[in-house]
């Protein structure tokens, strides 16, 4: 490259040293909290459960946690393992009890015992439900190597868990 080449560059393409900020378009900062919040629908017919109706900042005020363990308290051990296991339990139960859980899956841990609680829609025969309970408990206790207990409450109609419509 030589100096003659630089001279041929038009004025517009030259790097403006002083006014570089003028070229960058900026908008106002949008740090709006959106997670766990539901917008109103035009017909106001979107059902929310109590859990969904309260945004995350209401945890410990209006609603409580879905995972109960001592891993995340000060000085708790194996927090990452617990989080991954909880997520695995949630995925497995959601898939096994397909479209039957009408609440969040509550996972409570006491020592090495894991209690899985929640509201279940009476969509299948009781016999099948008992099978699913045994199946879930058996498989999860085999994978996680600790006793699992399913403590469910059955709901006659999905509308019974609706807290409000948005």
């Amino acid at each position, binding site marked *: 490259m030589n100096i003659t080449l630089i001279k041929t560059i038009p004025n517009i393409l030259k790097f403006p040293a002083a006014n570089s900020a003028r070229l960058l378009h900026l908008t106002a900062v949008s740090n709006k909290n959106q997670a766990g919040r539901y917008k109103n629908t035009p017909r106001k017919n979107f059902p929310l*459960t*109590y*859990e969904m109706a*309260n945004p995350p900042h*209401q945890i410990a*005020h*209006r*609603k*409580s*946690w*879905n995972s*109960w*363990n*001592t*891993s995340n308290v000060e*000085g*708790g*051990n*194996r927090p990452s*393992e*617990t989080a991954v296991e909880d997520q695995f339990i949630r995925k497995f139960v959601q898939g096994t009890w397909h479209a039957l859980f009408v*609440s*969040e899956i*509550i996972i*409570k*841990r*006491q*020592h*090495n015992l894991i*209690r899985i*609680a*929640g*509201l279940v829609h*009476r*969509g*299948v*025969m*009781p016999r099948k439900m008992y099978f699913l309970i045994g199946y879930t408990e058996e498989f999860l206790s085999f994978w*996680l*190597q*600790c006793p699992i207990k399913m*403590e469910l*409450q*059955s*709901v*006659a109609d999905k509308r*019974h*868990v609706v*807290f409000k419509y948005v």
Partner: protein
Amino acid sequence: MMNLSRNIERVPFRSIEKQLVASYCNSSPQTQTKQEEFRALNIRNVKDPFQTRRRLQKTAVFPPRADQMPVDQDWGSVWPGPRSFHPATVPLPVRQGFTEKGAPPPNKFNNAELMKIPNFLHLTPPVIKRQCEALKKFCTPWPKALDNEDKIQKNFPIEVISSDYCYSSPTIRDPMARIITVKFKLASLKLDDRARDKFLRLVGPRYNEENDTVTIVTDRCPLKKQNYDYAMYLVTALFHESKKVEPWEEMKSEADMEIYCWENNASKKNIEALFGCKSEEIPNAAEYSEAVSHYMNEGENDYTISKYGEAVKKLLKLQGTN
């Protein structure tokens, strides 16, 4: 079917089989003829007879068990262990949840919030009482002779503190559980002055002067047992090491003393020479020795100087003469 069932009621058991076989024989030729017929080609796309979808058989749901509970039932056997809340079993009209505009909080049915919170329904006072009664036979009474803190301190001078940690996770191991703290009063070792001085030099900041307590914390070994053994070894080693007198310790001269001790000093010899007898026999010598050691140890200030002056006056019987 109606006929068949009637027959079953009437005829003895053996004839049931005949009846059943007969009914099968009667019905089978008809179904065969239906299948053998040609299927009509449906050109105009006339709808088939409406096929009903198999509907879910609704099983009867029993009313909540809580409605049928007698008032004087044994709650401990209804709810024997820790468990998530279940509205049909708990006969309490509990509600939980936040509602706006003064509406009542959501009731106990279909309420996930109640299932989240830990409950103590398995630990009602009568149940705790019952469990304590059951555990009593495994307990031994507290020794009667150890009725106050001083006796406990005297007979069990050493205090070992360790912690166990409970977690809601499958592991029962915690690295913090290895730490052992051993506490004891220095007076309980019954050391003489020289050994005590050496002991304090060895333990350093582990000695608390306010309550005369030595605290040894061991955490260098991976297990609690190992740390306990190490702590006990330390106590033993400290005790024997402080009792031992090394040859170089005998070489400690008056200039090396960290505090002034009247007994070892020229002041005592001078007095004895002055009075011509032993210091114990001289009246007011104890007060004088105390004043001198105070003066030497605490330094020169108004109080120590005046004390020293008074003691000298008393010793030399100069009272009243100014």
